């Protein structure tokens, strides 16, 4: 008869093996200024695992040709690899169909495509575009461009001093003239996780579509866009362990069908005459020209990598790091954490009394610790919080508590230099 197993601390079966993860990232073995690299700037861009680098290299070495062109075997292989990447990304995001995934250059291009191709033709003077006060410049400026061109107005839902969206005010701002809501899922500057399911419900109750800036959500949170009933989502490969130069616009099929092409060219047409051209079906219609084929292959490998680690496990690991880091740096005299939302993901923004974030960044760099210092492309949010800049540490699956310790030690060094 089996004896009862001894009680063990509760460790989820999918807990992340961080040392194994770190071994996948060749760059983590490098040094800067003779120190172990402590990379805490994944919110700006993540590092790349061997699996992604290998996928691109293998693709170029064995299967590369242009897609949708050649009658030869190699082009068929390249096309199959490109299509497979789209299918992987569609599954990863919880899309209903692969053609709901459009490959772009990144989050910025995806948002601009919706702004120019979908929203702009529907705007009349006085119409409203609703964003939040915590948007990245890439979810502000594209809307200013279409507002300026059409006479529409940008309205901004407020955030609290803790860095949370004021949900009542957000709801009240969705009016009869609101044509689109565009909001960050996760704030790049503060780490705030917005209640996007509620926000989508509120907007849909008034018949308004929602674009989510998913740049900071895609690498960190489980995502099921069909369940969420999201209309559009933009994200970037390079923030989710994939290559630079490629990103995604997800759109519900019926909405993407209504997006006018912004770029015309090869591969996006059905027929072309000098009088008139007709468009190819989705997704090709919105992907003019030869795309970043190898980038798509790399992104496909990246989302496969994230799925293999398990997004819930990544989330739990990063949550542990964020909690530990918040406690560690709060012990340091003069440090103030900026952004104290109840739900946060992977971002720790902070200031130090009398010491500019750039100086913090330079001294930390001398100890091997990479953080971002500045306004994080969110100047209106910084103004709202009465700040010009913060220092920001951000975490990924490959970070450890000892990285956080290095940050805390580095901040003690900052205090010594500016004592």
């Amino acid at each position, binding site marked *: 008869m089996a004896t009862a197993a001894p009680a063990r601390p509760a460790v989820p079966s999918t807990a992340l093996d961080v040392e194994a993860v770190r071994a996948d990232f060749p760059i983590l073995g490098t040094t800067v200024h003779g120190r172990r690299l402590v990379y805490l700037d994944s919110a700006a861009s993540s590092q790349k695992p061997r699996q992604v680098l290998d996928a691109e290299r293998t693709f170029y070495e064995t299967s590369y040709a242009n897609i949708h062109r050649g009658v030869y075997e190699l082009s068929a292989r390249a096309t199959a690899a490109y299509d497979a990447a789209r299918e992987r990304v569609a599954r990863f995001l919880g899309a209903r169909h692969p053609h709901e995934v459009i490959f772009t250059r990144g989050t910025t291009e995806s948002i601009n495509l919706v702004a120019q191709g979908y929203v702009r033709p529907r705007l009349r003077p006085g119409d409203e575009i609703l964003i939040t006060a915590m948007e990245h410049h890439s979810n502000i400026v594209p809307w200013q461009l279409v507002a300026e061109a059409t006479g529409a107005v940008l309205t901004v839902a407020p955030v609290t001093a803790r860095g949370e969206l004021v949900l009542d005010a957000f709801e009240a701002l969705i009016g009869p003239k609101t044509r689109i809501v565009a909001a960050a899922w996760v704030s790049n500057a503060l780490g705030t996780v917005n209640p996007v399911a509620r926000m989508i419900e509120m907007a849909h109750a008034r018949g308004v579509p929602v674009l989510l800036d998913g740049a900071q959500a895609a690498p960190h949170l489980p995502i099921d866009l069909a369940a969420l009933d999201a209309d559009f989502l933009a994200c970037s490969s390079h923030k989710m362990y994939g290559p630079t130069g490629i990103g995604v616009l997800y759109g519900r099929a019926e909405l993407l069908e209504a997006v006018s092409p912004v770029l015309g060219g090869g591969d996006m047409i059905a027929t072309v005459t000098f009088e008139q051209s007709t468009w190819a079906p989705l997704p090709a219609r919105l992907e003019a020209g030869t795309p970043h084929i190898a980038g798509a292959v790399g992104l496909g490998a990246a989302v496969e990598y994230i799925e293999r680690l398990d997004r819930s496990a990544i989330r739990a690991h990063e949550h542990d790091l964020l909690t530990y880091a918040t406690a560690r740096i709060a012990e340091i005299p003069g440090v103030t954490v900026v952004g104290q939302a109840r739900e946060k993901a992977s971002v720790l923004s902070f200031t130090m009394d009398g010491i500019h974030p*750039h100086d913090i960044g330079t*001294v930390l760099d001398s100890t091997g610790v990479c953080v971002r210092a500045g306004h994080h492309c969110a100047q209106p949010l910084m103004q709202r919080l009465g700040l010009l800049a913060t220092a920001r540490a951000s975490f990924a699956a490959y970070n450890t508590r000892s990285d956080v310790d290095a940050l805390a030690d580095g901040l003690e060094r900052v205090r010594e230099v*500016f004592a």
Partner: protein
Amino acid sequence: MATMSELYQTVILDHNRAPRNYRAMPGATREAEGFNPLCGDKVHVWLKVTDEGRIEDVSFQGEGCAISKASSSIMTQTVKGKSVDEARTLFEEFHDVVTGKAAGEGRGKMAVFAGVSAFPMRVKCASLGWHALKAALERPNAVVSTE
């Protein structure tokens, strides 16, 4: 890599803590604002230039890192009493110091910024106040960006 003490020299830390000529200037004859769009830092420089082209008074205010604040502070001390032409030459000299092109280490207190040349990401911080000065000398009401 240059050490932190080579970059953050005592003189720089002192000017950061207590910047000189840090005030608005009513009755300025020229002024300019400098922005660093990369980091959001800004500096406002005021000048009183006599009809003979001499910088009678110079002051600044702004938000920025230790390097940028100390540099603006030392800039005001360096150009005060100089002619407009001399100030332009000093701008060039300063630029050579922070980009590592200076034969020596530059004149006077400028020498403390020689360490910046080892930190290319920080050259713009060090130059912000000087760029605003140059803009104010060239146009009476200017806004200048480091980008």
